[in-house]
């Protein structure tokens, strides 16, 4: 009986092995090292270079977006002040350097678009994900390196198309990052920037969708197919899980936004009426469209838009969990529960888009239907937060820039999340809708929180990516100014919203608003200061890249696969070997042969694993 069994086992291994070897030889992810400047740094197939390209694009976008927010804050409190040089870029938008109310809306639209798409999607998901997902699962590269390269360059073209809107006579669109129809659909009658500016916006976002679809497809295929020996799904680090879940959301969400953009473009350029209703008069002109539904755009947009929020925040949750576990020097109370919670957030994200539309004229019963799953999302989100906080107990917390930003993330996530309870309920949202309360809410929970995770990830992984440490003193300075500054900016937003300060207004002319001006001035000063502090980070990034202290392969005593290879990693990550994984990713706080941790690649046996 035993001989055939052994035979069958051997047959299984050889057949399977041959199949694998042959497959691997033809598999696209095994490619030769790149040669020449173009191949190495520009049209690179290397997931690490592509990750850094995404990160760099996000960095440029975030500083552009930040300057736009400065201009907005400046205009709000000093509406008649001259901004020298602005008239060169915006001849009609800022004649003589003074921002017009319309140009304020242009700034607002471009700030939102840049931040949501090109920063919050690009950096934590596409940037870090590209760099570390293949390494953390023990792969040499992504499943489809060519698609990966196309994904970045499509995104880059999308960025250029969007930025072009600043330099055309029409100027950037004024319809907000949500591009609500019919304002966004009827063309130049509706205001400055809604001619070619809006066209460029729609084309840019459509291209962005294509880039993200290619990227998401790649992430999923890579995670499913290219895991190293022993790397079961539950042995993947939380960050990898976050990127994996996010790519599933991204694949389906951007697949909805792309058709929506196509329909909007047809309304604008081909005369169709998907979103433009009958009898619409804009600027005294009857629009030659009929029967369209403006609500349809809102449905399509938010069906993408709400999952997009989780595309921004889930990778942040993953990065923070990964960094935090390392800094605590002990496992989280339950990594598994965090993963399951992220899955349920991902699932619920599809059922809540209507909570953006409580005042849109939707049936009030629908509002109730959307309110319930929205409130339900707070359950997994709270579970994740409690696991982080509970894990702090008895931890040997390492104090450094990475862990401070991770803790700062938790603070932002909770502060911003709590205001979500209010907005999730239709009766309260009716009052708070379109006020600064909403702006404060999403800036904290989605914007700044995700940015904190990006910072945390940067301080944590910089040694791996460059082979040099970042400066800790500058890092701490950067953290404290940013942390305090962010609260100074966004906490008052909530109070402004409660007293009825509406958003998207370029000046406050109603009787009750002048009394709020001192608070607005305080916010503007805080925004200018906090923004300026980001140049400390930029300096640290550039300085450390060239002059930083050389980093060892594993400076943070980490356990996951990225710490088992040289810093920076060679072009094929593991030097041609296929790593073998023996453990769960977070074996901290035990007595291993190398210290208080055991790496995933270490064959040491752990009792009670």
């Amino acid at each position: 009986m035993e001989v055939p069994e052994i035979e069958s086992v051997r047959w299984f291994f050889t057949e399977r092995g041959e199949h694998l070897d042959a497959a691997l030889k033809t598999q696209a992810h095994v490619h030769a090292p790149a040669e020449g400047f173009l191949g190495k740094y520009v049209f690179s197939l290397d997931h690490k270079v592509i990750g850094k390209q995404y990160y760099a694009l996000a960095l440029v976008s975030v500083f552009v977006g930040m300057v736009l927010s400065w201009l907005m804050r400046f205009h709000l409190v000093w509406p008649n002040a001259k901004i020298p040089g602005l008239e060169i870029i915006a001849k009609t938008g800022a004649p003589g350097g003074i921002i017009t109310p319309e140009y304020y809306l242009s700034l607002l639209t471009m700030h939102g678009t840049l931040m949501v798409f090109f920063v919050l999607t690009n950096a934590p998901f596409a940037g870090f994900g590209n760099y570390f997902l293949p390494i953390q699962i023990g792969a040499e590269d992504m499943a489809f390196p060519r698609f990966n390269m196309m994904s970045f360059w499509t995104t880059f073209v999308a960025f250029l198309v969007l930025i072009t809107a600043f330099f055309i006579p029409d100027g950037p669109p004024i319809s907000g990052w949500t591009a609500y129809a019919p304002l966004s659909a009827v063309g130049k009658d509706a205001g400055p920037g809604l001619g070619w500016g809006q066209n460029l916006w729609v084309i840019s976002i459509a291209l962005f969708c294509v880039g993200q679809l290619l990227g998401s497809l790649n992430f999923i295929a890579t995670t499913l197919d290219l895991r190293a020996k022993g790397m079961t799904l539950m042995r993947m680090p939380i960050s990898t899980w976050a990127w994996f879940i996010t790519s599933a959301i991204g694949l389906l969400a951007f697949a909805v936004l792309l058709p929506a953009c196509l329909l909007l473009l047809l309304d604008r350029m081909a005369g169709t009426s998907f979103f433009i209703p009958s009898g619409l008069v804009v600027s005294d002109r009857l629009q030659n469209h009929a029967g369209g539904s403006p609500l349809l755009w809102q449905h399509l947009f938010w069906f993408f838009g709400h999952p997009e929020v989780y595309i921004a925040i889930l990778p942040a949750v993953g990065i923070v969990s990964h960094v935090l576990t390392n800094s605590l020097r002990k496992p989280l109370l339950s990594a598994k529960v965090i993963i399951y919670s992220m899955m349920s957030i991902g699932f619920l994200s599809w059922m809540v888009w209507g909570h953006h539309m409580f005042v849109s004229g939707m049936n009030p019963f629908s509002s109730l239907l959307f309110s319930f799953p929205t409130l339900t999302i707070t359950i997994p989100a709270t579970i994740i937060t409690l696991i982080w906080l509970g894990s702090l107990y008895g931890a040997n917390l390492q104090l450094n820039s990475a862990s401070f930003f991770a803790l700062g993330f938790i603070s932002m996530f909770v502060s911003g999340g709590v205001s979500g309870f209010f907005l999730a309920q239709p009766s309260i949202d009716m009052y708070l809708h379109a006020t600064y309360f909403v702006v404060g809410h999403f800036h904290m929970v989605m914007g700044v929180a995700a940015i904190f995770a990006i910072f945390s990830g940067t301080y944590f992984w910089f040694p791996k990516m460059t082979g040099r440490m970042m400066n800790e003193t500058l890092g701490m300075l950067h953290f404290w100014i940013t942390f305090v500054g962010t609260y100074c900016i966004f906490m008052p937003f909530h109070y402004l919203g409660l007293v009825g300060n509406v958003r998207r207004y370029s000046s406050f002319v109603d009787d009750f608003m002048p009394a709020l001006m001192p608070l607005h001035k305080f916010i503007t000063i805080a925004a200018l200061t906090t923004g300026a502090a980001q140049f400390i980070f930029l300096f640290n990034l550039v300085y450390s890249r060239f002059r930083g202290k050389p980093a060892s392969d594993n400076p943070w005593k980490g356990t996951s696969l990225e710490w088992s290879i040289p810093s920076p990693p060679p072009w094929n990550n593991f030097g041609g070997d296929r790593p073998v994984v023996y453990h769960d990713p977070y074996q901290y706080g035990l007595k291993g042969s190398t210290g208080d941790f055991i790496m995933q690649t270490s064959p040491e046996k752990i009792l009670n694993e």
Partner: protein
Amino acid sequence: MASTIQSPIALPRRSDSARGSESGIWIALFAITMSFAAFISALFIRQASSDWTHIAAPPILFGSTAVLLISSLMLDISRRQMGTKSATYIKEGNKGLVFLAATLFLGLAFVVGQCLAWRNLAAQGLYLATNPNSSFFYVLTGVHALHVLGGIAALAYLFLQLVVGNSARRNLVNGVVVYWHFMAALWVFLLVVIWERL
């Protein structure tokens, strides 16, 4: 806290299977399904409007449907005619190639059929912006035809590989076959929507 001893432990089964292109195609199908779901939901919301009318679907659509379904069958026969060796399909004789060429030809015929359907509509004075029904007709058939053209490009690539190199990667062939069947099934669904709703 657990203590450790130095000894290797048994490994769990390797989950790696190098499915490559085939997984890529399956994942892409989810995205494509979602895109068409978006178009169809847009259609269902838009039809509530008072300017929603009815357009007569051009009869040639039934011809092109038959063409696409037969092409799907041809592609499956073509795959069955080829030999397999570990991770590749090998051209064994020319039978497989003939059926693959037939698939390619029928696929192109389908796209030509769609073009004729558009000309038929235009001859009735129905253009993209004429009414919501014609808008949806052009959008749905147009986006589907674009996807079919993508499939035709992939089929042509496979054809060249088999002619020049005698073999093609198994996961790529399987992926393209799945994609092509999916396009046929999607078209039947779209035809029902067009027939029932437009």
